[in-house]
Structures are given as C-alpha cells and as structure tokens.
C-alpha cells in the first residue's frame, strides 16, 4: 500500500498541475478506489465511469486536501463515495416510484453487503477492531448510511426495524466509534 507521505506529496504536486504526479497518483490510488466503487455500485461500467469522474475532480480540487481531513487515500475515497451515492440516489429516485413496500422487502434481502469484508481484508486495523465492537445490526445501519447513502427512514425499511430504533443505533454507534478510535 502506498505510504501516506507519498500520496500527500503527489496531491500537493497535482495542486500545482503537475501531470506526472497526477499519473503517479492514479497508478497508486486507482485500484483501491475502483475496488471501493465496485463494492458501492456492484456495476463495472458504472464504477469505471465514476472512477474517471472522481479523478477528474481530484485533478481540479487536489489543492483542497488537508492532512487534518485524514489519510490521503481515505480523502480520495470519500470523493468517489460522494459521487457514487449521488449517482445511486438518482437511480433510486426512479426505482422508488416503482417499488411499494413489498418491493422494498425484496431489495432488502440482498445477502452480505458490499462492506462486510472491507476492513478485515484491507488496511485500517484500528477501524476494523472498533467496528467489530459494534453490534451487528447497528453496524449495518452505519454501513448502509455510509456506503449506500441511505436515510434513517430507508435504513429502517431495509432492516425492517422501527425508525426510532435505527436513529438510536446510528447515534450510539457513532459515539462508540469516536470513543474507540480516540483522538490521535
């Protein structure tokens, strides 16, 4: 995996419109971001499209990166995640008019989510440990919010649980993650 310094340095050079740095950034970061997009969208064509869109945005906004925002790869990941959620949400608007409650029950029955193995497989051991400490359903609620951009309301429907329960799960899970991750 690329070191933090080199990706941060490449981003700084991209802010100065250094094309070579941009190519190196792509070589280092694109496989991870493409992997993330595949898991978010489960659609190769859409993932490829979003990867290109994401890197075009990175070229324009590399100067916005600040170390306070976290690891460079996580920052890049959050950019493509926002693009993916926007795109999926637009698709969801179309689907929503077609699906009644029983339709949503079918959507909900989707087996293991895209995120279930992410952190055990790759990268952030501290985060993986903290996620392990959450109960399965509250953890899934946080994942559905983060990876699929679902509202409390949609999470409640997807998990077939009361809205108030889902809100409390998300709230408590975030606080537990904060405590577990500590302030570094």
């Amino acid at each position, binding site marked *: 995996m690329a070191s933090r310094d080199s990706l941060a340095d490449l981003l700084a050079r991209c802010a100065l419109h250094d094309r070579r740095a941009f190519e190196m950034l792509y070589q280092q970061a694109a496989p991870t971001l493409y992997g993330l997009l595949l898991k978010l969208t489960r659609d190769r064509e859409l993932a490829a499209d979003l*990867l290109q869109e994401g890197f*075009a945005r990175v070229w324009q906004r590399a100067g*916005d990166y600040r170390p306070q*925002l976290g690891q460079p790869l996580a920052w890049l*990941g959050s950019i493509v995640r926002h693009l993916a959620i926007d795109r999926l949400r637009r698709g969801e608007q179309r689907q929503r008019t077609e699906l009644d409650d029983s339709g949503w029950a079918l959507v909900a029955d989707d087996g293991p989510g895209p995120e279930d193995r992410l952190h055990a497989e790759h990268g*952030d051991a501290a985060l993986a440990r903290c996620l392990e400490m959450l109960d399965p359903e509250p953890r899934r609620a946080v*994942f559905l919010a983060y990876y699929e951009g679902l*509202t409390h309301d949609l999470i409640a429907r997807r998990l077939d649980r009361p809205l108030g329960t889902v809100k409390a799960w998300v709230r408590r899970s975030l606080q537990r993650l*904060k405590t577990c991750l500590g302030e570094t």
Partner: protein
Amino acid sequence: MNIHQSPLRDHLAAEYVLGTLRGGARRRFEQLLPAHPSLRQTVTDWERRINRLATASPSAPPPAIWRELERRLFPAPPRRSWWDSLALWRGLAITSVLVAAIVLTPQLATSPPEANLPFATIRGKQREVLWMVTLADDGRLHVSNPRAMAMPPEQRCLLWLKTGDTPPVMLGVLPDDGGVRTLAMPAGMGQPARGELWVTMQPMVPNPQPPTQPLYQTRWQTL
C-alpha cells in the same frame, strides 16, 4: 437547535458527515458553519474519523479509463515525433528571429504582436525577476521561479490572465520553491498571449474569487 450545547453539536456534526442529517436540518446546519469555527472543527474531526471507512481491497481498473481521463483533461497529444519537437522548432524559431533581427531590423519593428514565442517576466519591487512565463505552442504555460521565495504561512501566489474589462481568469498556482511548473490553459481561452498577467497572493481555497487588484502585473512580450 441550540448549537452551543456540546453533545448535540457533536452529534449533528457526526450525522452531517455520515449523511443522515437531511432536509431542512441539514440546510440549517450548513448555514451555521461559516460563522462558527469550532463547529467547522467538529465537522473536520468527524470527516477524519468517518472517511476511514472509505477503503476497499484493490481491483485493477480497465486501462481505457486512464486513456479516456488523459484525453478529457489534457487534450494536447502527449507524444511527439522529433519533427514535432517543440525544442527543435523553438530553436529554429529563435535562430531565424535573431537572423532576421540582424538583417531586417526595420521590418521586425512592424511585425505583429502575436509573433513567435510569447513570454512574460514578472518582477518584484526591486525589479528582480520573480517568475518567467513562456507560452508553448501546445497552449501550455511554462513558469519558472529562479529563486525560492519565503512565503507567509498558508499563502500561495496565483497567476491570472486579465483581458479587456472582464474579470481575470485564474491560470494556476505559481511555483515558489525555485522550480519550474507547467500550467494548463483553461479551455476556450482564445488568444492567451494578449492582455496582462496578474499575480495575487492569497490563502489556498477552492475556486478563489477573481481579484480586482494585482500584487504584481506584467504584459506579454515577444522575441
């Protein structure tokens, strides 16, 4: 909402970053951000935590994505044969202009301002050269900063193109480390070798507002 109550503030920031704060509550929260630095800090802290979720196992993207991205962002062809070499033709152009200058000095004075090799020199208060800018024939700007500069913290020098009465257009961040950079001209800029080059010094922010006054300014020259 009483935003000064700390646990509530922390919770709203967390749900804002996670994306579960929606509708009117999200808009009200965003309206509070510009005036409340500590609230922005709380949001930044949550971004740092929650963005850690944005990792995945790598998967090689199709090679076509990079080719398409290059074509989209850098329309100029990246590879050239020796016949198309900028250095070759620049060398020939300099030689022929110098020969012409010696042989045909009166005619040179009447040559059009768009003649070969536009360049500009940006000088400081003591007339020292701060930057040299040359316009390549692929429309890109080569900027050199002969001597590293001591910049105030968090400040960068930006290069702008000012033509006519329209607001200046940003060309990019100027090097301040004694190095050389290539800046891409924005698409559809027409004749970049006209007008004035402006330099401003300002904090790095996304989409900076066009300045009304430059810190330094200069005009294009030609050999």
